[in-house]
């Protein structure tokens, strides 16, 4: 009989303690970020889509078409087109397309690039109406920038 009343008392007490916690949190400030108006700070290490770094000397990209990024990609989402020019049969980059719909942002391509020609952008607000909107041509993007 004593246990019966003790259980009721302790149970009620535990419930009141729980209520006290939630009412306390009700008057604490909000922790969510109101997205379109506020924005989170994106850390510099953020993995967005790929983009070229600019070579300060030429103003173009540093890419020498060694194809290591292509070979290291697990999802085979990078396609590079090039032409061979000159006496030294140097490869000249024509287009560098990343199929972002298939990219898994593992970072292997960026690490494979010894010249540091590619990097991750901080772009995270990506929308589009078609799959093709996410085929990023890095060469053109560099020219626009």
């Amino acid at each position, binding site marked *: 009989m004593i246990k019966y009343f003790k259980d*009721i008392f302790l149970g009620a007490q535990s419930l009141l303690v*729980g209520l006290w916690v*939630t*009412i306390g*949190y009700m008057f604490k*400030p*909000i*922790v969510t970020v*109101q997205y379109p108006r506020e924005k989170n700070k994106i850390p510099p290490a953020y993995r967005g889509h790929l983009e070229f770094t600019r070579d300060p000397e030429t103003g173009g990209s540093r890419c020498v078409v060694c194809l290591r990024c292509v070979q290291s990609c697990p999802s085979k989402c990078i396609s590079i087109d090039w032409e061979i020019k000159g006496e030294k049969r140097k490869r000249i980059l024509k287009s560098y397309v990343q199929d972002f719909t298939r990219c898994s942002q593992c970072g292997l391509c960026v690490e494979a690039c010894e010249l540091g020609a590619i990097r991750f952008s901080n772009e995270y607000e990506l929308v589009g109406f078609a799959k093709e909107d996410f085929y990023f041509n890095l060469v053109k993007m560099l020219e626009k920038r």
Partner: protein
Amino acid sequence: MALLPPEFIRILISSVLIVSFVFLNAMILVYIERKVAGHIQRRPGPMEVGPHGILQTLIDGLKLMGKQIIFPDNIDKPLFCIAPLLAFVPAVVAFVVIPFSPKLQAVDLDMGIIFILALASLNVLAILLAGWSSNNKYSLIGAMRSVAQNIAYEIPMLLSLLAVLFMTNSLSMKSIVEAQKPLWFIVVQPVAFLIYFIASLAETNRAPFDLPEAESELTAGFHTEYGGMAYGLFYLGEYANMVMVGAITTTFFLGGWSGPPLPYMEYSGAFWFLAKVYFIVFSMIWFRWTFPRVRFDQLMNFCWKIMVPFGLVNLMITALVLKI
């Protein structure tokens, strides 16, 4: 107009007022519930439509009205259609006898509380019909749970109300309020108040007793198959029931419209009445966002092993004290 008897006009006006009161209340309550839930969970709640999202529920209601009601295969169509109405209408009709202030009461029935309780138990029927006619096993389990739960909890609820009725010697809502002029019954009958409050949580299927709709077990319980305004009516019915519970608690335990005097107290007493109702409703919301759900057998154990004995003892003590 002259041909209409004045009584008829009075009925018309009061029913329009009550229906709009219930609708408005439901809308406000949905908003309050979402805001309270949001702030308890440290997020702002609806913020987009109108300042601080104040029009959100209106828009949601419009959206629900615009939606098609989907009838699944092999349902019992007439019952499927009746159930949401049955959930909503009695909840509204019961407001007829609620005394908002000395002069704001549609009808002062002699047996007001019996009228309310009778209508409130129709709610079970609505849930049972909804669960049965949906041709969905989750709905059926939810409905069966609801029936067992509501029937069980009606007993402690009546026991606690009976203790108050012993003291007032009247079933009329108005006279119950007036009997509390010297002292609110929550002071005299704290146990009855607690029992009534807990039982009413179970009656309205609010957490932690929201077993009929327990969404982690039964997806959405009895209204799994409902959509559009049919679902909306269940929702309105639930909120109307919440206000009803708040109103009964206020009338029975919190002294109804009484409070610090305001000008035109015959009418403005409704302010105090509503304030108390909203306080009760707020605590129901507060409970919901704090506690986990109880299990079905625990719910029954709690009712039969704790609530009913306490209610009976309370009733006996009340009777004894009154007799002496």
